[in-house]
């Protein structure tokens, strides 16, 4: 019996850490997709770029891990504004096929460019002392890094929740997700709002990318490898819903971890089963608008 409890705790802990990574990376995608119905398959590329900026900052310039996470997020957020204005904007009114093709093209270009600069070998990042080793919580020891990820994730959930539900800009975003035309006619500048959310979302993706280096290692294929997972989190949670994205990230993160612990050969089979079931029953996801 204690064995079962140990495994259950491990699954819950690792699943939670994984879910937080998924949430941080996918939440921007969810909000931008909810706002503009834009299928952005280059989101993973922004995460990958963030990861590589962190690698360069820590290894070439000797910036410490936490600062380089912040710098990389801001940098990617700023760069993404130009992409949004120049390349994404002309395709808001186009069908999802055009959007898929454009952003997949961008993702391919990003993979090729980062392979050219960094090579295909997985990169790692030097962690500060206080993130290494285990932390003892009395009954069990847990890896510190994952504990840090969970704490950071929960903190970001709180910040985003506050920003989304309690600030003026959050109210505008929610209004625009609910009914774009109405929001525009009451004087909300949805274009500007979208640029801002896009930049924040890409910045968060870059943060997720930086955090993921320690978990999975970083290769240029990060841009598409985890993209399907981000999209699934967004689709299952419902477009533009913070709560939905969190729920979906938790569900998929924990189920995927449990699947890998218990039936390793099945790989990612379970999350796809869950995805199909959820989407067949609720095509717009948990909290999406039908």
């Amino acid at each position, binding site marked *: 019996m204690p064995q079962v409890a140990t495994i259950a705790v491990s699954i819950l802990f690792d699943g939670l850490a994984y879910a937080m990574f998924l949430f941080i990376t996918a939440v921007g995608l969810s909000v931008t*997709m909810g706002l503009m*119905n834009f*299928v952005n398959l280059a989101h993973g590329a922004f995460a990958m770029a963030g990861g590589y900026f962190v690698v*360069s900052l820590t290894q*070439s*310039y000797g910036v410490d891990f936490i600062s380089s996470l912040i710098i990389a997020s801001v940098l990617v957020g700023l*760069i993404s504004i*130009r992409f949004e*204005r*120049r*390349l994404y904007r*002309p*395709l808001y009114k186009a*069908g*999802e*096929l*055009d959007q*898929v*093709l*454009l952003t*997949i*093209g*961008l*993702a*391919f*270009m*990003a*993979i*090729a*460019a980062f*392979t*050219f*600069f*960094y090579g295909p070998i997985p990169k790692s990042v030097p962690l500060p002392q206080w993130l290494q080793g285990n932390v003892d919580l009395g009954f069990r020891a847990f890896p510190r890094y994952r504990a840090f990820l969970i704490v950071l994730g929960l903190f970001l959930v709180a910040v985003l929740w506050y920003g989304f539900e309690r600030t003026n800009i959050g109210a505008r975003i929610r209004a625009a997700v609910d009914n774009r035309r109405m929001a525009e006619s009451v004087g909300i500048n949805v274009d500007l709002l979208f640029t801002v959310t896009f930049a924040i979302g890409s910045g968060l993706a870059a943060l997720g990318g930086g955090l993921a280096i320690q978990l999975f290692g970083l290769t240029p294929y990060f841009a*598409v490898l985890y993209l*399907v997972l981000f*999209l*699934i989190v967004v*689709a299952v949670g419902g*477009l533009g819903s913070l709560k939905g994205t969190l729920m979906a990230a938790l569900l998929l993160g924990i189920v995927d971890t449990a699947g890998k612990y218990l039936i390793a*050969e*099945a*790989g*990612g*089979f379970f999350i*796809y*089963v869950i*995805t*199909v079931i959820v*989407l*067949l029953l609720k*095509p*717009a996801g948990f909290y999406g608008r039908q």
Partner: protein
Amino acid sequence: MAGNDISSGPGNAGRAQARHEAAEFLLRRHRFRPAEALPWLIAIAAFFVFPDRMTFGSQVLVMILFAISLDLILGYAGIVTLGHAAFFGVGAYTVGLASARLGWTEPISGLFAAAIMAALAGFISGWFLLRYRGLTLLMLTLATAIMILETGNFRSDITGGYDGMPGLVFQPVLGMFEYDLYGRTNYLYALAVLAVVFFFVRRIVYSPFGQALTGIRENVRRMHAIGSPVHRRLVTVYTIAAAIAGVAGALFTQTNAYVTLTVFDFDTSAKVLVMLILGGTGRLYGAFIGAAVYLILEDHLSKLSPTFWQFGIGILLLVTVLFARRGILGVIEDLGRFRSWKGRIRMVPGRIVWSNVQWKGIGMAAFDGALIGLAVGFAANVGRTNLLWSWFVTEPLSVLAWTAAGAALVAAINIGYLVYAERSATGSTPR
């Protein structure tokens, strides 16, 4: 359709006349044009001109077939899918498993078996999935393909997993034509299958059923309103397309004599989509041009460097989506319309009204140009410096030069464009 379904309207004679005209119109569309012989002539010529590249040639033919099946659902019915590789894979594995595990090595019956299995998969998944649209449909098709992939990976004792099933053996085609070392038999076999399937697809596309599909693509609500059984039609065409993709997959396995789980990958779905878009959707021959151009480019460029090739696909996609949405075939059609070049295009510079110029737009373009210049300069210098980012610190002048060059170039292009755009905007020819 019943003869008396229009109670009011033109008289009997007028109705018969209208019906006759409609039938004439469909027949005219269906009639073969001389240009349609071109791809087939090229395919046969290739057999004699490149006798040692026939293995590659068979791959092109297989991908053309696969792209045609996607064109049927994407180009005609407007179903956007990211999981079309599922049916290709089902077909490939039907033949592979039949040969390796059951000893069923007859190729033609293998094609039929693959078509039936893939059609079954297409019917079942289509019945459930085609109720949805947009992102949900994208995700569902994607997840379905990955689920099949993971199932195959789970039972790698049967499927061989990612190592696949190498060294499959097949009987000679029709019991007569032995496989040779250079894949010539394979090429002709694939060409024959492609021809048969293509003329089947061509019939579908120009039939009333094909017209209904185009109607669904253009305006679903209207098709619902005039009483067209939309879901049934979509499932039907999805099943047919799945069967054809299955045949393409079976041909892939037979001509390569091996198959691995990578056929189910997202990469496969994305690749065929890129080919089709590159050639042009909804115009039958787009699949031919797209698959051929893509594979020939890939063959040459990936020898040079796989990284450059990947960058190249990205740029191809970007350019296609932004500037040539109807693909290579669409560009060719447009060029064909320019009967007289002299009469159409007159690049006469105008006079810029500087007070009308939007400096902010040019400034932003220059900013983007600066970023591009920076990236290109970084790429050009990355080999010389031992630390990846040290170029920025050690040679600030070079950094500045690249940035300025990029900005100046793009700004100049923008202003140069204005010179011409200004003329067409005012509509007057300068003196």
